């Protein structure tokens, strides 16, 4: 069976949806971050796949490289937030961080 664009898109979609579901269901902040990573990488798979199967050149790869760098930076900031959150609340249950409700 030949691997086509649709397979990649399918995998990307599965990763994306898994990430979103993870963000929406997990109360653990770290798990939420993992969901974010899944979403980002699902998108990356799509970029790379489109770049590979169309004549867009290396644009997709470049964008995915940016996304990876961005994700790393985001992870660093987010983990710092998580640590502070833990220091303040003695937990990383994000449902406890609802002080900003209206």
């Amino acid at each position, binding site marked *: 069976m030949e691997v086509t664009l649709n397979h990649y898109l399918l995998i990307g979609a599965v990763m994306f949806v898994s990430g*979103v579901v993870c*963000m*929406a*269901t*997990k*109360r653990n902040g770290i798990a*939420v971050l993992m969901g974010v990573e899944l979403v980002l990488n699902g998108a990356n798979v799509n970029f790379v796949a489109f770049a590979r199967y169309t004549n867009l050149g290396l644009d997709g790869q470049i964008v995915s490289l940016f996304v990876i760098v961005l994700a790393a930076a985001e992870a660093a900031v987010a983990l710092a937030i998580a640590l502070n959150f833990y220091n303040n609340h003695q937990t990383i249950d*994000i*449902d406890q*961080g*609802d*002080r*900003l*409700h*209206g």
Partner: protein
Amino acid sequence: MDIKACLLTTAWLLPLVGFAVEVFGGYWSHHAPGGRFKSRLAAYLSVGCIGGGFLLSLTALLIGLSDFELSLWGTPEHGTEHAAAQFAVADTPHAAGSESHGDTDAKYVSGSLYELARFGNLRIAIDYYIDSLTLVMFTMVTLIATCIHVFAIGYMDDERTEDHVDHEVHTADGSHLHRPGRYYRFFAYLSLFCFSMLGLVLAGNIFMVFIFWELVGICSYLLIGFYVERHSASTAANKAFIVNRVGDFGFIIGLMILITSFGTFNFSSYNDHANSPESPGLFQMARDSHGQVHVAETNDSQRVINFAQPNGSHTSIPYWLLVTAGLGIFAGCVGKSAQFPLQTWLPDAMEGPTPVSALVHSATMVAAGVYLAGRFFPVFLPEVLLTIAYTGAITLFVAATIAVVATDIKRVLAYSTISQLGYMMLAIGLGGWIAGLFHLITHAFFKSLMFLASGSVIVGCHHEQEMPRMGGLRKKMPVTAYTMLVGVIAICGLAIPLHWVTGFSGGWDIAFSGYHSKDAIVATALTYANLNPIHSLLFLAPLITAGITAFYMFRLWFYTFAGKPRDQELYDHCHESPRVMTIPLVILAFFAMFCAIGGEGGPLFNLLGASETHVTDVAGSGIDLPTHSDIAQFHGQAGMLALLVAGLGALLAYLMYCRRQPDPALIKRQFAATHEFLVEKWRFDELYDVMFVRPVHVVASWFSGFDRRVLDGILHWIARTGVTVSAWDRKFDEGVIDRSIDWVAEKTQDVGRSLQAVQTGRLRQYVMFIALGVVTLFVLIFALFPLFLKA
């Protein structure tokens, strides 16, 4: 610049310096702690300024004597060649520098001190015009002013206190008014007045004359209203100012006609600048070098006057226009010199302190009108001169008759001043230019003397001015009484005519100044009446009035100084004035006696004669102006008549007020109606009240009614409509605009509140929203976008 101009300018500006120092420094020096309020510094400063001015003027006069090559003694040959020389400058374009004018024939020095502005051809500058008349006036004004300043040191002495009591003003609780004394203020005003008067005399153009004319007026206003708390004083000040405005109205009209017709304000061309262009002044344009007015008839039979323009071309102005200009200028003189019909202000002006009456309202300021009439003599046409003569004749008679019944010592003198000013105006109107100005100078001396003497009486009698309460005062105040007698004899023109007795025509009469000057006027009048029999009234009026003058002046003297005291208490408290007041009296008495020494062959007459403009008759006017040789023929006759009438008047006064035979009280009863008429000053005040004041009041009440009913009604209606419209507008604003805006705001707030519930703060929920939102957008785009495309 000419040395005389330098001296006179300094003399002119000195009082201004005094005024400025007193105004800016006087207040503080008097209110400084430690009782310095009592300082006489202000008086000394003023006296110093005006005294210095006198010395400078005298020097200028002496220099002028040699510069103008004047001979003081003997009767000069008054001929055409003499007068023609005076205005030869206009015709012969010679480059006369300031140094060389002594060699020329010019009998005047004219130049410019400072140019204020220039509008096209119109030039407004501070000019000077100095001839022998200016020099004599300067010396006379500064000398008299110095005497009066010194006198005022004594007279105003009771103002030198922090708590002056004005006995004539009652406050609401019945006590007298207490106020700080105004010593320094009085002297500041006097200095300002001297400055204005001297500026008026020095002026070289008519515009400057007008400025100083008004300044003199305002000084007069300030000084009449010096006791401003007295209702009578403030009213009198207003009256003087307003009546003068009437005359000044004419003055301005005359001024405008002159500037539009001749294009210059200057009296005469400048001859005091090395490079000044020869542009002729008013005097040189109106009459040519032979004193002739060039009257011509145009094609439409209109009379015009031709004159040469500065550029050499000839232009003309209508005859009637120059007559109007002359009448306008004369109207100003009428106001200032208190001539009929504007004479009513002067007697009221006696409300001021007596030195003011002496300086301002007898010797100098009122003389300004006569002076200006004399200055403008070349511009006056025969019709104007006739008007002047009749005005003078009416004035001198009316005022003299009122003086006969006046009982206030200062008012008698005030009316006599008006009467004497009438004499001067009459003389000028008759063409007796020198006679008029001669009388102006002599009158200034003896009238200021008499006013100061009356001031001395008033101080001595503790501010009592009613003559019926005085009497016999010569024993208490001999200096005042006998100096006053000198003035009385001088004004009456009594004399011992030696040359009749000896038959020697060159002999001198033993006479005081007034005899000579009045003689000159009466002689001019007699000659005029002989040349123009239709105007004989112009001789009778001054002749009869000479008798009346002698009567009322001796009446004054006998009432005050002779006989027995009528009010013993007043007599007992009466005292002679201090020396600071009597010495000026003696000095002035000396000049009242001797200033006209030599009569018409004497220095004063010759000095004035040097400035006379030769004037020839204007063809077609029907008036013959007397020449000097004409007058000489009638001189003896006129002098005899005048002396006779004056002697009769004096004798009558002696009989009535010393011998009581006939008794004045009896005469008063018999002529009760006439007496009342005269006491009410010929009812001029009432007449003006009916003629002007009441109509103005009526018209004013109409206008005020119109204002209140119509204009105010309209305005109120507009205002009310405005208020109503505004009320509607407010309702619309509040009901519609505000409410719609409020509604939008409320709804926005409601939406905000309802959306608040969505923000729970739960992260997972937000993620769900995002996801759902994305799905929704996805569905919308993919489900609805094709529909739009199809549509």
